């Protein structure tokens, strides 16, 4: 398994009155060929920001301060938009959280799907149509002929997300980033979409970066997982390792706060407090104010991401 994508010490943030305000801090991870890696964390911890950094889709006032994103022999953060456009949608693609608003309401599905082929290959109109029909049936859309002519508002949320997946997989990309692809869908549809992603991932041998706050989804789909908190990676490892023995108090808190079927516990545990604001980051460990195990050192000195094995890393002074 070779490394396909390597994010190295990425720091992303914004500038206010000349002062740099970090949102992501020294995020590093690798994505291997054919592997699915989950990024987990609460809202606002930097999961989506990480994905947008890789795609080069950060909004104007947010920029990469330092670090690199290496894909094959290219450094993505330094690539001009025109070069990046050759990779986006072809080799690295992305699906988003909100299927309802992620498609242009004024153009047909066929038109929006055809665009991907038009810009990433030399196909005739007939070939594009053929390919579009094929990919739509691959994502299990019934009546693909009709759906090509349909506008987004005529499709349900689940259908639209299938279209999004079809667009993402159109050129058989090497990497697909799925940013909470099932969050906005209801549970039965969620399961179908997850199955679909799993199935296609195996079929296309695509590496998937799966962003979610749902640990159940991670357990079901991912090989390795990364837990993020307040813009930092706080724990990483294989899914089995982390689920068996979460080492960071935050990870363990996340697991306890997930509902489990058949469990006798009446009330779910919660992690008290909220993710700190980027303006008031704690000086020591960022999780310390919410951590039940916190001691003086946690408030004074920031822990580093300690490598425990080839796959495992934890950022904590008091590993569980």
């Amino acid at each position, binding site marked *: 398994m070779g490394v396909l994508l390597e994010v190295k010490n990425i720091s992303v943030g914004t500038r206010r009155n000349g002062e740099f305000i970090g949102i992501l801090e020294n995020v590093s991870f690798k994505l291997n060929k054919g592997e699915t890696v989950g990024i987990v964390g609460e809202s606002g911890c930097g999961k989506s920001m990480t994905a947008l950094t890789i795609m080069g*889709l950060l909004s104007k006032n947010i920029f990469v301060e330092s670090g690199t994103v290496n894909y094959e022999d290219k450094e993505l953060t330094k690539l001009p938009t025109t070069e990046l*456009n050759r990779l986006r949608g072809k080799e690295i693609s992305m699906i*988003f959280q909100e299927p309802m608003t992620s498609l242009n309401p004024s*153009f047909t599905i066929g038109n929006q799907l055809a665009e*991907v082929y038009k810009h990433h290959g030399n196909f005739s109109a007939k070939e594009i149509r053929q390919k579009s029909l094929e990919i739509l049936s691959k994502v299990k859309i019934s009546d693909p002929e009709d759906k090509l002519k349909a*506008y987004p508002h005529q499709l349900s949320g689940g259908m639209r997300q299938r279209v999004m997946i079809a667009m993402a997989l159109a050129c058989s990309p090497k990497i697909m980033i799925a940013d909470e692809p099932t969050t906005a869908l209801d549970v039965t549809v969620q399961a179908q979409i997850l199955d679909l992603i799993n199935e296609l991932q195996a079929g296309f041998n695509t590496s998937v970066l799966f962003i979610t706050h749902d640990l159940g989804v991670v357990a079901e789909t991912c090989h390795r997982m990364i837990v993020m908190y307040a813009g930092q990676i706080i724990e990483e490892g294989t899914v089995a390792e982390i689920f068996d023995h979460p080492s960071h108090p935050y990870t363990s808190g996340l697991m306890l706060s997930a509902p489990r079927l058949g469990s006798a516990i009446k009330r779910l545990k919660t992690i008290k407090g909220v993710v700190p604001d980027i303006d008031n980051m704690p000086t020591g460990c960022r999780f310390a104010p919410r951590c039940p195990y916190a001691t003086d050192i946690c408030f004074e000195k920031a822990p580093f991401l300690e490598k425990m094995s080839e796959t495992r890393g934890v950022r904590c002074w008091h590993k569980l």
Partner: protein
Amino acid sequence: MIKYFIRRTLLTIPTMFLCITIIFFCLRVVPGDPALIMLGENATPEAVEGLHKAMGLDKPIWEQYLTFLNDTLQGDFGKSIYSEKSVSKQLIEAFPHTFNLALMSIFIACIIGIPLGIVSARKHNTLFDDGLRVVSLIVLAAPAFLVGIFLLIVFSVQIPLFPSMGVGNGFFEKIYYLILPSITIGTGIAAALIRFMSSSMIEEINKDYIRTVRAKGIPEKLVFYKHALRNSLIPVVTVIGLNMTGLLSGAVIIEMIFSRPGLGSLALDAIFARDFPVVQGSLILFMLIVIIVNLLVDLSYSLLNPRIRQS
């Protein structure tokens, strides 16, 4: 789509009927006896009565209404009290001048406003955008009569490039005569269009679907000119339509400044002279214009927005 077009078009019929009815009854309520006005203050009661009879004013109101409705549907708006000229004829004579002016003004507004609005959105928060904002606010704030007189003094009196009055004959001369007045109106509307276009485009460019398009690796140019443009045109079309109706019901002030005949001056003169048939005819024509332009705006929406087309 065709079904929608037909349905939307048929819907205008009850609207027109209602408007015609309202116009009829409003004019009956307005004080002033047309017969008395025609004959003068010193007319004998017999003479007034005779004229009432001739004009059908002695009949019960519903009968008058039915006659009015019948005449209107046949395009007969009666005769002017003063000039004795047929009202329809006067309207038909005046309408093309107003229509040309409105069309040319909107054309100028669009070719200035829409491209500059797009550029202003693309260069959002740059010096260019700020400069354009200042200029368009100044133009917006300047009243049309001021701009008109200014243009007249500079380009017609000081530097005699353009005529100061009249409408000209033949296609090219007509356009030549239209230049100053339509620039006067057009720049004002363009200033508004720039702001509308720009803010509408900025709103669209920040939407989720644009991120999807970019994630597909589509070139920035297409992101703007294909994806964002069509959606951002929808509110702009509304503004254009509203302005068009306003202009077609007569740009009175501009017509006066540039001494152009037109619906505005026709209606205004008729109101001052209490020339009821002409007022009535102009009102009906204005109503028709408003309804037709609104119809066109709605139909063009459906071309831009598939959700309207299919609902």
